[in-house]
């Protein structure tokens, strides 16, 4: 099973796409998802992450079937 990865706002514009798919491996974290997909691009400072619609730390474990999102600080309201 795979992990769905989504990008939003300025981060999506920068990456040039709104998401990726990643094969799940054991011991994967949020930071590991980013590193696997963007080995040459460090996670931009202040980037926020979510796993299955909940805010998540970079150390949080990611499992097969999870939806992981990366996005800049929110600016609603």
């Amino acid at each position, binding site marked *: 099973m795979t992990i769905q990865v*989504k990008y*939003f*706002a*300025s981060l999506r*514009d920068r990456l040039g796409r709104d998401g990726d798919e990643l094969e799940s491996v054991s011991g994967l974290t949020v930071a590991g998802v980013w590193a696997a997909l963007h080995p040459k691009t460090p996670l931009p400072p202040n980037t926020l992450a*979510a796993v299955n*619609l909940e*805010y998540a730390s970079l150390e949080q474990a990611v499992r097969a079937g999870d939806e992981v*999102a990366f*996005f*800049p*600080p*929110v*600016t*609603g*309201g």
Partner: protein
Amino acid sequence: MRVELRPASFAPLAELAAYQAEVDTRLLGQYGALSMFIGTMRDFNDGHAVQTMNLEHYPGMTEYQLQRIAEAAWRQWPVLDGLLLHRVGALQPGEPIVLVAVWTAQRAAAFSACRFLIEELKAKAPFWKREETGQGAHWVSHNTPA
């Protein structure tokens, strides 16, 4: 309690009046306080003229986070009812962005819960503003603190 995203321009005071009529059928005589906030798009932000704005969101997460923020307010104050509407999509200056309304028995809880909802929403709900100015477009980098 109603929490909704609005993909097209909406009339916040008309929506509030319609919801107030519903609240009255359930709670007339019980609520003594209604605190309301409407955020509107300005034509000027951070020193530059803004022509249009696009409000992006994360479908699914945005609704879920708004619901959680509302539940947190309900746990903290004796809220009788509430309404939270937030715009997404392309906006012109003068168009409403967000409506928050809270009905309580007494005023302190209404003010506190209404303020909490807007501050939490601005800090946590996944929305992103992209402004178009005469000099091009840019993403708003952060919200101003309360």
